């Protein structure tokens, strides 16, 4: 078994093990064990990759190619570069933190953890595959459990939210499938066989007309998951209804599939399409950046605030990808990671506040800093990280994006860049609004004075997420350089 396939196999083994467990205690123990092993594997992969990278110049390392359907030339083709390694690490950390945060899932615990791990399997598979068909398959595996997780374990109008989310994502998948088939049927443009292999397609000069036609399909197909304006509306409702761990995993990991897919498929395989269409999607993504931030100012539900904040932050990822240069792309990947940790942390904290106060309405909360200091202090830190304070990962990512965006000299790029940069002010407004209303100020409700403190599993989950945020923020160089190096081959196409 190779080092990468394990990432898909292990969750499946854990799922099988989970089937034989009884009750919450056993289920969560197995889930925790499995997640810890995954994290260990991810860390191991990181070091193995760093070692391999210094001696191996190929774009993807640890590759493995198994023919799956010979007639259609579908392969189980896997491999990683610095970008996927970083995202795999992100996933494993968030899954583990999610298991800790779901420590007290009394309702169908076995089924809950099984769905969570199915989702994780899909995500890992997506990040390691370098064959379009396999990639799409894993993509669907990752998206579908969402319906069950929200529909069964959710709260509020959960059926509605689950349905909305699934329908919108499925609609996007349809576009994506058409786009992928479009690439597939043009992959013989240079006389070779039809292929789904990303590396092989990248060598082919896909006709300009086809690129122009299929780029927007693939871009939108992936970007709906990345909360591209105006296709973001599934996200606030979906998050609001989802249980905590699902929100964490969804916003932290699943939404990253969007940007990653855009980068790997749309940008890499259809570079001329990207050049042709970039202006249009830049407008949409820049709108999303500023629009999400302004919309967040008016929300009162913590989860909605965070969902709109995600629209803004992930808008920045798409925006950066469309800037078509190394620095901005580096920023996009870093922002994906940074947002993953931050938003998962936010959802974890929101869940902790909700289980204690039974409300997510900030106007009903107040003075929490006095009552539950640990949770509140971490919330303040997460907020500061989210508004791009130096010393946290968000700053590193945003500065890469802004500096990268500023490398484009024409007036259009200048204007949209400045608009996007202005989001740093609006972000400060909505973050400090929450901090001011909810955490500071006098304690609003007498009954809050006796709220229980954070438990060990909550603390562990939260610190697990905070650590990389600070780590990346304080010492970004190794990560940033690792990603930069992996970006190099992808850059050739657009230049």
């Amino acid at each position, binding site marked *: 078994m190779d080092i990468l396939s394990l990432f898909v196999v292990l969750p499946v083994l854990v799922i099988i093990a989970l089937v034989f467990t009884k009750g919450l205690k056993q289920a969560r123990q197995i889930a925790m064990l499995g997640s810890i092993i995954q994290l260990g594997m991810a860390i191991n992969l990181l070091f193995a990759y760093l070692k391999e990278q210094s001696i191996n110049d190929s774009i993807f390392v640890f590759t493995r190619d198994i023919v799956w359907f010979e007639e259609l030339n579908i392969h189980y083709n896997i491999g990683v570069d610095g970008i996927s390694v970083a995202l795999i690490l992100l996933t494993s950390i968030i899954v583990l933190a999610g298991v800790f945060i779901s420590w007290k899932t009394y309702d169908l615990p076995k089924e809950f953890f099984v769905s969570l791990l199915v989702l994780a399997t899909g995500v890992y598979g997506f990040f390691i595959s370098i064959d379009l068909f396999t990639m799409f398959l894993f993509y669907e595996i990752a998206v579908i459990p969402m319906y069950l997780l929200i529909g069964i374990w959710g709260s509020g109008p959960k059926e509605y939210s689950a349905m909305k989310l699934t329908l919108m994502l499925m609609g996007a998948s349809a576009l994506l499938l058409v786009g992928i088939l479009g690439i597939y049927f043009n992959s013989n443009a240079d006389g070779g066989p039809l292929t789904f292999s990303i590396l092989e397609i990248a060598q082919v000069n896909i006709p300009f007309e086809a690129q122009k036609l299929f780029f927007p399909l693939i871009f939108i197909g992936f970007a709906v998951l990345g909360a591209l304006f105006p296709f973001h509306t599934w996200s606030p409702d979906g998050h609001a209804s989802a249980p905590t761990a699902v929100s964490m995993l969804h916003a932290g990991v699943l939404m990253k599939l969007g940007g990653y897919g855009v980068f790997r498929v749309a940008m890499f395989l259809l570079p001329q399409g990207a050049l042709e269409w970039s202006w249009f999607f830049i407008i949409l993504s820049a709108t999303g950046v500023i629009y999400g931030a302004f919309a967040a100012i008016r929300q009162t539900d913590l989860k909605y605030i965070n969902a709109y904040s995600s629209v803004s932050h992930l808008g920045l990822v798409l925006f950066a990808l469309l800037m078509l240069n190394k620095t901005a792309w580096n920023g996009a990947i870093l922002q994906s990671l940074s947002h993953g940790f931050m938003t998962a942390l936010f959802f974890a904290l929101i869940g902790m506040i909700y289980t204690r106060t039974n409300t997510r309405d900030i106007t009903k909360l107040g003075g929490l800093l006095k009552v539950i200091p640990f949770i509140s202090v971490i919330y303040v830190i997460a907020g500061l990280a989210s508004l791009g304070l130096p*010393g946290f990962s968000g700053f590193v990512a945003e500065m890469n994006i802004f500096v990268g965006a500023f*490398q484009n000299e024409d007036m259009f790029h200048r204007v949209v860049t400045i608009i996007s940069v202005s989001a*740093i002010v609006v972000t400060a407004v909505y973050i400090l609004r929450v901090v001011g209303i909810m955490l500071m100020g006098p304690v609003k409700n007498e009954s809050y004075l006796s709220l229980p403190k954070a438990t060990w599993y909550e603390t562990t989950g939260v610190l697990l997420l905070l650590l990389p945020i600070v780590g990346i923020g304080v010492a970004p160089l190794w990560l940033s350089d690792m990603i930069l190096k992996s970006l190099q081959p992808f850059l050739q196409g657009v230049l």
Partner: protein
Amino acid sequence: MNISYLFLIPLIPLAVFLVLGIFNKKIKPAISGWIGVAGLAASTILSFYGAFQYFFVTGKLDGAYQTFTEKTVWLNFTDSLHIDLGILIDPISIMMLIVVSTISLMVHIYSRGYMKGDPGYTKFFAFLSLFTFSMYGLVLATNLFQIYIFWELVGVSSFLLIGYYYTKNSAVAAAKKAFIVTRFADFGFLIGILIIGFYTGTWDFETLNNPEGAAIANWASTSFMGLSVLTWALILIFMGGAGKSAMFPLHIWLPDAMEGPTPVSALIHAATMVVAGVYLVARLFPMYYFVEEGYVLNIVAYVGAFSSLFAAIIAITQTDIKRVLAFSTMSQIGYMMMALGVSGFDGHEGVGYMASMFHLFTHAMFKALLFLGAGSVIHAVHSNYLKDMGGLRKHMPITNITFLIAALAIAGVPPLAGFWSKDEILVAAYENSQFLYSIGILVAGLTAFYMFRLYFGIFWGKETTYAHKPKESPRSMTIPLVILAIFSVVVGFIPFSEYVTADKLGFVAHLNYPLAATAVLIGLIGIILAWIFYKKENDLAERFARAFGVFYLWASNKFYFDELYLFITRKLIFKRISAPIAYFDKKFVDGTMEGIGNKTLVVANKIKGIQSGKVQDYAFGFISGIVVLTIVFIYLWTN
């Protein structure tokens, strides 16, 4: 010169912050106070040692002070652009080290008394250390991006300390306001940094500031709307500086920032962080001076002069003693900005630059003293308002004397520190523009007046009936007062022009007797007027206020700038932008998606009859399909 040991200066407070922050609950307050003081004392000793080494032993080469740097790459952007972290040693960074160390140490010692018994004692010292660390990082920065990083960090420390009494709504609002207003200014700053990076290919101060270097030499190569792009960048960077330094019209956060504990006001909002804007312009002074023949310096000078006058007028009307001091700070920083704005570069022409730095230095001493004195008074009478004070000189002799020294210093009475630095500023203004000079002289008079209005109001006048008999503050608070008072007397005698100049060569400054005499005379007139108005209880002041009518009302309401900003944020941004966007999102964007979903249902309902289950219907559909397809294929083939 070996400068590696100077890295310890910022790192010690950082370590203190981490220790106090992480073990917040486990450390006894008495111990955490000492940890804070000890850490800062170590940094202070290193700063003074470094200053001595630099100025008197190894800093000079061929008569010019050298720049020493040591740095490491922190983050790579492009092949040429990267962020370095490191330290840069030159006259102004060393001078700032002395200012930050001295004031911060005094404030640390003072806070042990002032914050005694506060439930967040340890947290308070942790925040103070965080701030001091960030401020050291800012002044030692080797490049624009590093300064921006620490710029944000001092901003957030300021936020945390203003909001220290976080259960008080006014403190929370003030903290938010300070952060958001400065963030808005930093938005400009960041764009300025991006422009500089793109057009010069570096953020390194040494490279940028080299008068013969490419950055300055090629300033005219790219222009935008009639000005060099670098001019735009410098304007935007100045916007960042104006935000931090509370220059008009970005000043509105500073008076509210007085919600923080008084030692914080002394440290952050009087002596160190608020002068960061002045420091920033001084740091980039060669660029400001050479790019577009000093175009931006004119803006700096006029913004500074206007803020200075504007704040001095408001200061006269305020009744909260800390707010008087806040406006006074704004006014004095305006002075420094004006001096920088009128400065030349070589030799004696650079007197404005020297005067600005000199005034920054002396002002830090006496303004910190004023704040700490005010804190001592507030500590004794439990109120910030002048109406609750009066006749305190008998109860608080040390506070009284030290406050008087500081007030005389800021009023420019010789031979106290403020006299020397203010005189240089007025000389610089006089040599450049009569108009700016007259504003400077007017502000000098106003300063003397409002400061002695404050002094007489607190320590003289009718004795208020106090609930608790006020008594002198404990020794931990009075010792820093005395030390700062000594500094306020002596630091004026430092021959600053030999050490800190724009061209780093040094020159000999002479007192300009006619100008000095005029300034002193104006100051004395201000003091005497205050004496007449406020020494004894009388209604003269009130009658005057009434005579000024509307103007007085405007000034006491700070010319309604708070209301203007509230209108912009609440009414325009919240109501006219944010709310419509949230509504639009719910109704239209989401509505469209819902609409598609609902339409699908409707269509599905309409067409579900097709799936009738009758074989005849299916056969009909099947045959129709074939017919249609055949037609299509025939059509395609024939074309």
